[in-house]
C-alpha cells in the first residue's frame, strides 16, 4: 500500500517537473499525461485497496511542514474519494494528451501541465489529511492550482472575471473553514482529527451549531450549492475541458467530502435540523440548478449548472442520511449516505464524460454555442456515442449509473415514514416532489443538449467541417463511458463497498451486506427491490428479440432514404430547424415567475411599405436573479466598506508607521490581560 502511495506522489511530482522543464513537444505532453495517468491510476488502486482491506494507511512526517508536520491517514471515506479522483483524473489525463495539443504556442503548456499534476496531487492528498492544518493547506493548494488552470485561456473575455469570482468565493469559504476548525479544535489547528473527534462531543450546542453553519458555508461554497454557486457556471466553462472535467467531477466533490467528514465523522452527527438544512439546500440547488441549465445554450455552462443540480441531489441523500442519523435510524441513515456517495461517484463519471465530450465538440467546432452546432453525430460518431451515454446517465435513465443512485436517493426519502416527528417527516414528500421534477427537467435538458448539438443538420460551417477527435481523447471518454455503464450495472459491488466505507463513521453500523441481495438492490425492511443488471439484460434480450420476431413474420424490410418531410417545401436549410432557445421556450414560459424573462422585439420595415420587413431582431434574456438580488447588495456593501478603508490609506509613510506601532501596542495590551 505504501508503495502505491509513493508511486502516486512521485508520479504527480515528476509529471509537474517534466511539464515545467520540457517544452511544448508531443513528447512532453505525452510525459505529462502519462505521469498524471500513472499517478491517478495508483491513487485509484490505493483507494480501492483501502476500502477492500478496511485497513487505513497512515503516514506522518514532522519535517515537511514547519509547525506541526504532515499528518496523513487514508481511511475508507478518503479511499472512496481517492477512487473518484483517480477515475476521473486518469481519464482526463489521457484525454489531455490529445486535447492540449491545440494549446501549443498559444498558451503556456508548461504551466498547464504542472498545475494539472499538482491539482491532482492536492486532491489526492486532501482526502488523506488527518489534521486541520494539513487539511487547510491542501485545501488552499487545491484552490490555487485550480485557479491557475481556470485562467489558462486568460486572454479570452470573461476568463479573468470568472477567475476573480472563483477566487473570492473560494476564499470566503476558506475563511469559514478556518473559523470552523478553530472552533472544532479549541483554537489549536495542529490537533489531529482523532482528538477533534473526541473533543467535538464536549462542545456546547451553540458552538456545535456554529461549526455546522460554518462547515455548510465553507464546504458549500466549494461544492457550489445555491446561493453560493454563482462562481461555478462562470469558472468551470472557461477552463480547458479536461480541467473542467476535474473541476466539476472531482473538485466540487471535496465539498461533499468535507461535509461528510466534519458533520458525520468529526462531529458524530447532529440534531435533525442540520440534516433538514442540508436536505433543503440540496433540494433547492437541484431544482434551481437544472432550471438555470435549461436556459443555457452554451454547452459547457449548461453542464456547469448541471453540476449545481447534481451536488443538490447528492446533498439530498446526505441530508436525509443526517436526519435519520439524528433519530438513531442507523440503517436508513446509512442508506441515505450511501445514496449520496453513490451519486457522488456517478456524477464524477458522467459529468467528467460530458465535459470531455463537450471539449471534443469545442475542439472540433471552436464554439461552445449550441445554436451553431448540429449534425455532429455523423462527423463525430464516437464522441456522440459517449456523450449520449453521459446524457442518458445524468438523466437517470435505466440501466445506467445515474438511475441506480437516484433510485437509492428516492428510497431513502421514502424511508421518511419512519420519522416520528411530522414537522420533519413532512420534508420528505416535498423533497421527493422536487427531486422528481429535477430529474424530469434534467432529461428534458439533455434531450436539448444532445439533440441540438449532435442531431439534424449542421447550423454553421464550423459544425459542417467538424472532424472526429484524436484517439487519445476518444480513449479518455471511453474510460468514463465504460465506468458509467459498469457503475450502473454493478450496484451489487458498489453499494456494499460504500457500506464498508461508512462503517463506524458517526457510529454507523456495518451495512455492507444490508442493501444488496444477489443482483438486486434492496432497501431496509424489504421495502423495495430493483436490479439494474437484470433490467439491462432484459432490455438487451428484447432488443434482440424484436427484430428477430419481425424477421420471422416477414415484415417488409425495404428502406428508402428521402428528404425530410417539410410539407412539400423545396429545400431544407438549418434555419428551419428547432433551436435550443425554442426547445426551452415552453419551460421558460412555465417557470416565468422564476426567470422573469425580458423581451425586446424590433422590426425594420422597408421604407416604401410596412408590409415588407427588412430585418427582425428579437432579444430575450432571463434575469440573473441571484447576481442581482443576492450578490448585488453584498457587492455594494463591500464596495462601500472598501471606500471607508481607503481613507486609512493616505500614502504617507509616517501614518503607516503609526498604524504598525499602534497595532503592536494594542496586541501587547491584549496579551497582557488575556
Amino acid at each position, binding site marked *: 500500500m505504501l508503495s502505491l502511495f509513493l508511486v502516486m506522489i512521485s508520479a504527480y511530482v515528476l509529471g509537474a517537473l517534466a511539464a515545467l522543464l520540457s517544452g511544448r513537444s508531443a513528447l512532453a505532453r505525452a510525459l505529462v499525461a502519462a505521469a498524471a495517468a500513472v499517478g491517478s491510476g495508483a491513487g485509484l488502486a490505493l483507494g480501492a485497496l483501502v476500502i477492500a482491506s478496511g485497513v487505513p494507511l497512515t503516514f506522518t512526517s514532522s519535517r515537511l511542514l514547519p509547525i506541526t508536520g504532515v499528518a496523513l491517514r487514508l481511511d475508507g471515506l478518503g479511499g472512496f474519494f481517492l477512487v473518484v479522483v483517480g477515475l476521473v483524473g486518469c481519464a482526463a489525463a489521457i484525454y489531455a494528451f490529445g486535447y492540449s495539443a491545440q494549446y501549443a504556442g498559444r498558451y503556456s503548456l508548461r504551466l498547464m501541465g504542472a498545475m494539472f499534476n499538482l491539482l491532482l496531487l492536492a486532491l489526492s492528498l486532501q482526502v488523506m489529511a488527518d489534521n486541520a492544518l494539513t487539511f487547510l493547506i491542501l485545501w488552499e493548494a487545491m484552490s490555487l492550482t485550480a485557479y491557475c488552470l481556470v485562467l489558462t485561456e486568460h486572454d479570452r473575455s470573461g476568463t479573468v472575471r470568472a477567475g476573480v469570482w472563483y477566487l473570492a468565493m473560494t476564499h470566503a469559504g476558506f475563511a469559514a473553514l478556518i473559523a470552523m476548525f478553530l472552533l472544532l479544535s479549541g483554537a489549536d489547528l495542529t490537533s489531529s482529527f482523532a482528538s477533534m473527534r473526541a473533543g467535538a462531543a464536549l462542545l456546547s450546542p451553540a458552538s456545535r451549531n456554529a461549526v455546522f453553519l460554518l462547515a455548510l458555508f465553507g464546504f458549500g461554497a466549494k461544492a457550489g450549492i445555491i446561493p453560493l454557486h454563482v462562481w461555478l457556471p462562470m469558472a468551470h466553462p472557461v477552463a480547458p475541458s479536461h480541467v473542467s472535467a476535474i473541476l466539476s467531477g472531482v473538485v466540487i466533490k471535496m465539498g461533499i467530502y468535507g461535509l461528510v467528514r466534519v458533520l458525520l465523522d468529526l462531529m458524530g452527527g447532529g440534531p435533525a435540523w442540520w440534516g433538514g438544512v442540508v436536505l433543503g439546500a440540496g433540494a433547492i440547488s437541484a431544482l434551481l440548478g437544472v432550471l438555470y441549465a435549461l436556459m443555457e445554450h452554451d454547452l459547457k455552462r449548461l453542464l456547469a449548472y448541471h453540476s449545481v443540480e447534481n451536488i443538490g441531489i447528492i446533498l439530498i441523500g446526505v441530508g436525509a442520511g443526517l436526519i435519520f442519523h439524528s433519530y438513531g435510524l442507523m440503517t436508513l441513515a446509512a442508506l441515505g449516505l450511501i445514496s449520496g456517495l453513490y451519486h457522488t461517484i456517478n456524477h464524477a463519471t458522467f459529468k467528467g464524460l460530458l465535459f470531455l465530450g463537450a471539449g471534443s465538440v469545442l475542439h472540433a467546432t471552436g464554439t461552445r454555442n449550441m445554436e451553431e452546432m*448540429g*449534425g455532429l453525430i*455523423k462527423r463525430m460518431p464516437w464522441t456522440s456515442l459517449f456523450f449520449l451515454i453521459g446524457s*442518458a446517465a445524468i*438523466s437517470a*435513465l*435505466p440501466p445506467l449509473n445515474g438511475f441506480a443512485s437516484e*433510485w437509492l436517493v*428516492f428510497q431513502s426519502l*421514502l424511508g421518511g*415514514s419512519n420519522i416520528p416527528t411530522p414537522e420533519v417527516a*413532512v420534508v*420528505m*414528500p416535498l423533497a*421527493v*416532489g*422536487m427531486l422528481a*421534477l429535477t430529474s*424530469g427537467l434534467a*432529461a*428534458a435538458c439533455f*434531450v*436539448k443538449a444532445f*439533440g441540438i448539438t449532435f*442531431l*439534424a443538420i449542421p447550423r454553421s460551417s464550423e459544425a459542417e467541417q467538424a472532424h472526429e477527435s484524436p484517439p487519445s481523447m476518444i480513449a479518455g471518454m471511453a474510460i468514463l463511458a465504460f465506468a458509467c455503464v459498469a457503475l450502473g450495472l454493478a450496484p451489487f459491488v458498489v453499494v456494499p463497498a460504500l457500506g464498508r466505507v461508512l462503517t463506524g463513521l458517526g457510529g454507523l453500523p456495518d451495512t455492507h451486506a444490508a442493501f444488496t441481495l444477489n443482483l*438486486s438492490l434492496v432497501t431496509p*425492511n*424489504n*421495502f*423495495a427491490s*430493483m*436490479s439494474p443488471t437484470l*433490467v439491462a439484460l*432484459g*432490455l438487451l434480450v*428484447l432488443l434482440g428479440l*424484436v427484430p428477430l420476431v*419481425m424477421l420471422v*413474420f416477414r*415484415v*417488409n424490410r*425495404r*428502406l*428508402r*432514404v*428521402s*428528404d*425530410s*418531410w417539410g410539407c412539400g417545401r423545396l429545400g*431544407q436549410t438549418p434555419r428551419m*430547424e*428547432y433551436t435550443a432557445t*425554442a*426547445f*426551452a*421556450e*415552453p*419551460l421558460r414560459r*412555465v417557470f416565468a415567475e422564476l426567470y422573469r424573462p425580458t423581451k425586446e422585439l424590433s422590426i425594420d420595415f422597408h421604407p416604401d411599405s410596412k408590409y415588407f420587413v427588412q430585418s427582425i431582431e428579437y432579444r430575450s434574456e432571463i434575469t440573473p436573479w441571484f447576481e442581482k438580488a443576492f450578490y448585488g447588495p453584498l457587492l455594494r456593501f463591500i464596495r462601500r466598506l472598501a471606500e471607508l478603508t481607503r481613507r486609512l490609506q493616505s500614502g504617507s509613510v509616517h501614518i503607516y508607521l503609526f498604524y504598525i506601532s499602534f497595532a503592536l501596542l494594542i496586541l501587547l495590551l491584549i496579551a497582557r490581560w488575556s
Partner: protein
Amino acid sequence: MKGYLLEISQALIALVLAPGLVGFVRWWKARLQGRRGAAPWLVYYDLRKLFAKEVVISKNTSWIFRFTPYLVFSSTLAVTLLIPLVAAPLPFDRIGDLLLVVYLLLLGTFFLALAGLDPGTAFGGMGASREMTIAAIAEPTIALSIFGLAVGAGSTNLGRIVAETLAHPSAAISPGHLLGFAALFTVMLAETGRLPVDNPSTHLELTMIHEAMVLEYSGRYLALIEWAAAVRLLIFFSLLANMFAPWGVAATLTPVAVGIAAVALVAKLAALGLVVAFLETRLAKLRLFRVPELLAVSFVLALLAVTSSFLLR
C-alpha cells in the same frame, strides 16, 4: 416455473390487448358523437398494414432515428413484464419496482424526443420540446403518488402494493387512496397523450405533441411506435386499475384464479376506456400553457394524498 410462464404470457396478453384497447376507446368516442365509427379491431389492421409497408426516412437522420423504435418498443415491453396484470406478486416483481417502471417509460420518451429532433424539421423539434416539458412537469405528481402508495402499502414493488391492498380492502376507500387515484389518473391523461393535454386524433401540426414527434416515421418503425404507445396506454390503465382497485387479481397461480383475473382485467380496462372516452367527448384540448395548471392540480391532489396517508398514520 409457472410464475415465469405466466409472466411471459402476461406480456404477450398486453401486446395483443393493447391495440384493441385503443380501438375500443376510439369506437366509444365515435358512438358518443353519434357516429358508427371504426370497429375496435381496426388498429390491428393498421398495424398489419404498417408492417407490410416500406420505410421512408430522411437523409438527415442518424442511427438514433432507426434505433429508437426498437428501444421504445422494447422498453415498453419490458415494463409489461414488471407490472402485475393478472397475478401478484410474480417472480419478476423483485427485479423492478414502480420507480423503475416510470423511468423505463421515461427512457422511451427520451429517445423518442431525440428521434423527433433528428430529421431537423421544425415539427419534430416542437413535438420533442413539448413532450419533454410535459413529461418533466408530470414527474413530481407520479413520484408523489408512488410515495403515497408505497407508504400505505409498505413497499414500492408493484406486486406487494397490489397484495397489500387486496389484504386490506377498506384502505381502498380512504381519502388518501382516492386522491392518489385522481392524481395519477390526471397524469395518465398527460403521459399517454389523451385529451385535454394532447389530442390523439389531431391533424393540425401546431397543436400536436406526441404526433409531431413521430411525423417522420413510416412503415414498420411507425408500427412499432404506435404499438408501443398503445401498450403504454394499457400499462397506465392497468396500473391505475390494479393499484387502486386490485380486486380480481390472482393471488394464487391456479388456472381458475388466473382466468378470473384475466376477465377482471379486461372488464377494468373497458371501464377505464369508457371513462376516458366520456372525458374526451366532454373536454376540449387545453392550451399548452394551461397544461401546467392541470398538472399542478394533480400535484396538489397527490400531495394531499400523501399527507393524509403519511401524516395521519
